[in-house]
């Protein structure tokens, strides 16, 4: 029922690929915000670095018609998430407001979910995270550090929602639009990322999601992703949402 929407938003993200500069500020912002462990040379070269948000680059075509397409990829926060279905311990599930969360402490490291995710947006901690020297001083106290042997992924900066909600409750008011946004969206220098309530027809994300440029990744699988991309615009055309 639409009326219930006011109490329960459905959080979603829109990424305008036309405005994306492939700068990866979102990637680093996410890692800093969420205490994602970094890897030294040997582990990184084995592909074990963890990216809750990852910039995928797809070179295509032959010279001189060649092109590279870029796509920032967080967890798609599917409305029908395949990962949650296979988790034997309910360490990953979908909240009523649509966030596919990951409860690190409950995870037993079976990695069924990493196999099930068609977007490969889940990472397994092969190592105990190391924070050499003073580097642990920069850890965000709002986010727990994951031990070796658990799976992690984008939580849409769920802790930010909790903080914002607590603040709103303590001030006896509803959560205002824009009060909760994930770190990646906040950081984006060309402002190519939007975040908000997809169920609020007046929200920017809801409007952009209805754009003729909008598409979702692997929609045919029926996962119903809540990360919506806008494909590139037309040269010297009129800017169109």
């Amino acid at each position: 029922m639409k009326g219930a929407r006011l109490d329960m938003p459905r959080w979603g993200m829109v990424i305008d690929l036309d405005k994306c500069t492939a700068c990866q500020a979102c990637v680093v912002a996410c890692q800093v915000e969420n205490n994602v462990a970094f890897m030294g040379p040997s582990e990184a070269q084995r592909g074990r670095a963890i990216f809750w948000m990852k910039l995928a680059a797809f070179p295509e075509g032959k010279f001189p018609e060649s092109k590279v397409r870029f796509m920032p990829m967080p967890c798609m926060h599917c409305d029908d998430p395949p990962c949650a279905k296979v988790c034997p311990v309910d360490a990953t599930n979908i909240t009523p407001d649509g966030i596919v969360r990951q409860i690190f402490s409950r995870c037993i490291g079976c990695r069924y979910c990493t196999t099930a995710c068609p977007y490969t947006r889940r990472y397994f901690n092969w190592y105990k995270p190391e924070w050499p020297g003073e580097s642990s001083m920069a850890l965000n106290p709002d986010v727990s550090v994951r031990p070796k042997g658990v799976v992690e992924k984008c939580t849409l900066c769920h802790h930010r929602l909790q903080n914002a909600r607590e603040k709103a409750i303590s001030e006896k008011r509803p959560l205002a639009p824009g009060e909760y946004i994930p770190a990646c969206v906040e950081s984006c220098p060309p402002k190519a990322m939007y975040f908000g309530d997809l169920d609020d027809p007046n929200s920017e994300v809801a409007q952009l999601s209805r754009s003729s440029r909008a598409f979702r990744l692997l929609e045919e699988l029926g996962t119903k992703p809540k990360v919506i991309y806008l494909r590139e615009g037309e040269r010297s055309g009129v800017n169109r949402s």
Partner: protein
Amino acid sequence: MKLDRRRFLFLSGGVATGAATGRLSLKAIGAFNEALAPEMGAFPGDEKFADSICRMCPGGCGVRVRTVGDRPVKIDGNPLYPVNRSGVCPRGQALLQWLYHPDRVMRPQIRNGEKGWESVSWDKALQLMAAKLDKVSSAKQKRVVAVSGRGAGLTRKLFARFLHASGANMLFSLPTGMETSEHALQLMAGRTNGGSERMAYDLENSSCVLNFGCDLLEGWGTPAHTLRVFGQWRDTNRAKRTTLIHFDSKLSISAARADQWVPTRPGTLGTAALGIAFVLLSENLYDGEFVDDNVFGFNDWTDTAGRSHVGFRTLVREEYRLSRVSELTGIPPATLVKIAREFAAGRGAVAIGPTQSPGQPGKLSDAMAIHSLNALVGNIGARGGVALVPTDGWELPADARGTEVTLSSSMEALETSLAGSPEVLILDQAESLLDLLSAAQREKLRQIPFVVTITTLQDSTTSYATLILPDCTSLESWVDGQAPTAYPHEVLSISEPVIAPRGESKPFGDTLLSLAKIMGGSITAALPWKDLPEVLQASSRRVAQNKRGYLFGTEVDEHWQRLLERGGWWTSDWTSEEQFWTGIKENGGWWDPVSWAAEPQRSFPTPSGRFELYSHRLEEWLRQQGKGAFSGTVRDWDRQVLPHSDEVLVSADSERFPLLLHPSDQLPFFGNNGQEIAYLQQISSLYGGMEWQRWVELSPEDSHERGIESGDLVWVESAVGKVRRVALVVEGSTPGTVIAPRTGNPTTGRWAVHGEQRLADILVPVLDPVLKTRSSMATYVNIYKA
């Protein structure tokens, strides 16, 4: 027995296997697991937000720092800071990894023969340095060479004044890459007497951008500003989408994200620009009014001695016919025609370039050819165009003795100084210098008896040092900021320290003031201030007297201020110097958001009073260099002065070296530093697998021919040397050209890969025939399996 998480999982393994289908018992394990997890620590303190300025690159964006219990835990853009307005690039996001880097230099250190590094007190370190400088200056020889990789600002000015006072030594700053284009514009549009102007683009309002080889999205200008402008070009709230056309031989991120990538043969960017000019002239698409009234050297002309000269129009129509341009550049004529028509279609079109990066300042002739396009469409000084604007950075209050600061950004002069066996070398945040020097030149650095390095991290300069003075990040000190390269407005900003310096590190500005005090006499008199805030306050007085501009405000404020100014109003945000000082500290800065005019500039400080396609200053310069004296025909002479295209690629044995190598710059390591930061290393490899390494990108065609696959170790050999790299085959990249990042893994610190040769070791520099600047734009190489 202590039951920890691992032990528990091990014990429960049997249960889990037995109950693979029994979700219930697995859930019970999960729940138990959850119960065993350590409690999250209590919230360690209050959350606060403080503003600062990022100094990861010379751009200096405004940042907002989230601190919890006085520890900075997150960096984001400051929405009030006009340059970046809330976004920061990945470099800025990684600022905390720099602040808390495990290889931070925490106290002064001195090299003690075989014993290695020894920590010393600040007193001892400064005494030692002062004694050394005293000794050298009393010998009355200019045996001190100082290099600063720091961006423009008060600290660099303090350093320059200190060097001047302590023996008339010169400070070298590392090039930004904009110098050649700026020089070209100064020759053509003139510079005021004694004034210092910088080149700026009003890109935010450009409608069509022809980019000749600039890596716009890989760190050009000020990254966060350029990235923000790119987003605005394609913002759905703006009616018309800005067209971006990229000319370059390599398929970079900037090329891929442009509306059109025009593959252009290396070394022919100026020729391509003149090809566009040819179309503008032959189809009569240029701004006739501006050209007729305000441009000199367009038509054929006769000088005072009665000699007739060839004009730009004649030269281009005769020598840059489309067929010839197409043959030289590899661009189809139809493409040039289409682009030229689009370029001339409306107001606000701008041409930028040639390649503007510290290692590749480009050719003067190319830069003049590109600026001639800007003149043809009448956008010099106009909205969306290019102009010379006053450089109004923070100024040190005048020295009582009237000594002026000497600063040079000439790499050639620096190399000459280094070759002259200096006694003392001071490297101030100058890691990127090492990527601009050849192996032989770097070896020479090791022979300098006393090398001081001012650095925050153990970086490649520390391996050359005798004395290390630990510097601070911008979060630990007072910082001043100013309008960065290419930014269209005047900006002066300031911020207080967010936290105390780590360990015993000290802001270099304070180190200089302490040193000046120790050295006494005229040096103390030249730098009389107690500390950095005192310097800043003294400098702010001059700005306070400027009756214009505003303290930083929101974007809404900015629009309102512009509206007021259009109506002829200006309301002062301050009434006294003290009020200005308090205001600028609170708001973070002052700026003058003046709108660029819709009409082009009409008067120019050149000998002719017009924009000069035939530059009298260049003519004079060429004569002084002995190039003139009309040795050839007048036409030959005119060709040298007018925008033209010089072939300057160093040719090589095409049998031995069939491939053309381009050094590339990457946003994470913009300005050739930041390699020590793990989060930046992790995003350095776009196609994955090359993190913490140095690699070379080949086309599928070239790699197939050589039996090379991605991941193979290969030798990259040029006429001057060879280096080992990891091969990366990139689909769709240009056959015949290879791309190698200028930098890569760190060479010092805990993640160092030792013995890695630098790309500079194989680059054959190209000398600009006029400016004599060195550019390493492309080098012929061969690649084979190692």
